[in-house]
């Protein structure tokens, strides 16, 4: 029964994630912590497996469209994986309340950012298509590597701390500061998430913070959900889905705060 529930939860998170561009990891860890009684650190470690699954599946699609800059991604991964591994170690010394507080703060911050942008999570860029139906990417040369590496270190650190992908940090940095076309920035960020999450997941796993019995059904659900979400995304008004996501995020943030203050789930 628990297994079925976890597959459904993963499916739902993967579906929302693929339709909105915000990874499922943001939802999975607080739900595991609040509704399944899993300590937040184990919840974060467990949902990292689902984050890797999503990244691997979606980035193989981007790669086949040739929109991923593997060299840029690999370079920035030096910073994201270092940041992720370091914070994953540090998390071992954090107590539960600090993690729950940070997570609640992150959910609140993300929700407000999305609302201020009027429900838009990413800037849409219309891809140019040539006569053969292939996407055309204008020539570019990534710039300001030090800035990109610094931001990647931060994004990786956040990923190792909270078990999230960190796309909302990397994509704007590559696009605005590094002069990378948006489509390439999105694909490359997605490409980097798997390695970044693996860098911290390995540390979580060694510490015993990945609960295999929960991770497997979640990953199975997330895999199916993101496959379906990617197909549905072009046909559905994502704006309403985004507001649904924000509502869930705000609910989880509030619930985490209550949990912190009272020491028990509301």
């Amino acid at each position, binding site marked *: 029964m628990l297994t079925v529930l976890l597959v459904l939860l993963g499916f739902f998170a993967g579906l929302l994630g693929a339709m909105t561009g915000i990874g499922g990891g943001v939802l999975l860890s607080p739900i595991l912590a609040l509704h399944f009684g899993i300590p937040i650190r184990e919840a974060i470690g467990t949902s990292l497996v689902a984050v890797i699954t999503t990244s691997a599946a979606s980035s193989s699609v981007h790669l086949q469209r040739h929109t991923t800059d593997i060299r840029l991604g690999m370079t920035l991964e030096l910073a994201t994986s270092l940041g992720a591994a370091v914070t994953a170690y540090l998390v071992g010394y954090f107590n539960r309340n600090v993690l729950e507080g940070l997570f609640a703060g992150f959910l609140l911050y993300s929700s407000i950012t999305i609302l201020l942008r009027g429900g838009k999570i990413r800037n849409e860029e219309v891809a140019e298509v040539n006569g053969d139906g292939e996407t055309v990417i204008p020539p570019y040369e990534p710039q300001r590597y030090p800035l990109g590496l610094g931001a990647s270190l931060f994004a990786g650190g956040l990923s190792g701390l909270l078990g999230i992908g960190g796309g909302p940090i990397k994509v704007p940095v590559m696009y605005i500061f590094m002069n990378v076309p948006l489509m390439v920035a999105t694909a490359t960020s997605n490409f980097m998430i*798997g390695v970044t999450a693996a860098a*911290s997941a390995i540390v979580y796993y060694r510490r015993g913070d990945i609960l295999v019995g929960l991770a497997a059904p979640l990953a199975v659900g997330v895999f199916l959900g993101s496959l379906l979400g990617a197909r549905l995304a072009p046909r559905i008004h994502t704006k309403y889905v985004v507001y649904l996501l924000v509502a869930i995020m705000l609910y989880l943030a509030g619930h985490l705060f209550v949990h912190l203050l009272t020491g028990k789930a509301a």
Partner: protein
Amino acid sequence: MSQLREPAFDRVVALVLRVGAFGCFFIMLAGLLMGLFVDSHVPGDIERAGVLLMLATPVVRVLVAGVLFLREKDWKYGAISFGVLAILLLGAVFGIGEH
């Protein structure tokens, strides 16, 4: 110069990720289904294998890309790839913060 457009390179890396994602999906699914009918440690072991393979997929992806760079005599990005690999493996070797 754009750094994109190396179709063969992209295809190989995509293949690694695809095999990892689909492979792990089916392995974990097999473990889950078996768990419904079999009461032993075997389904749990299968699920664990799926999870570990999932953790290994990005590591293999970095290794494969690194080897491809070296074969192209692209020493700079070959070195960067093996740097990333080193960071990933350090996490597997040193279990600081264990309890």
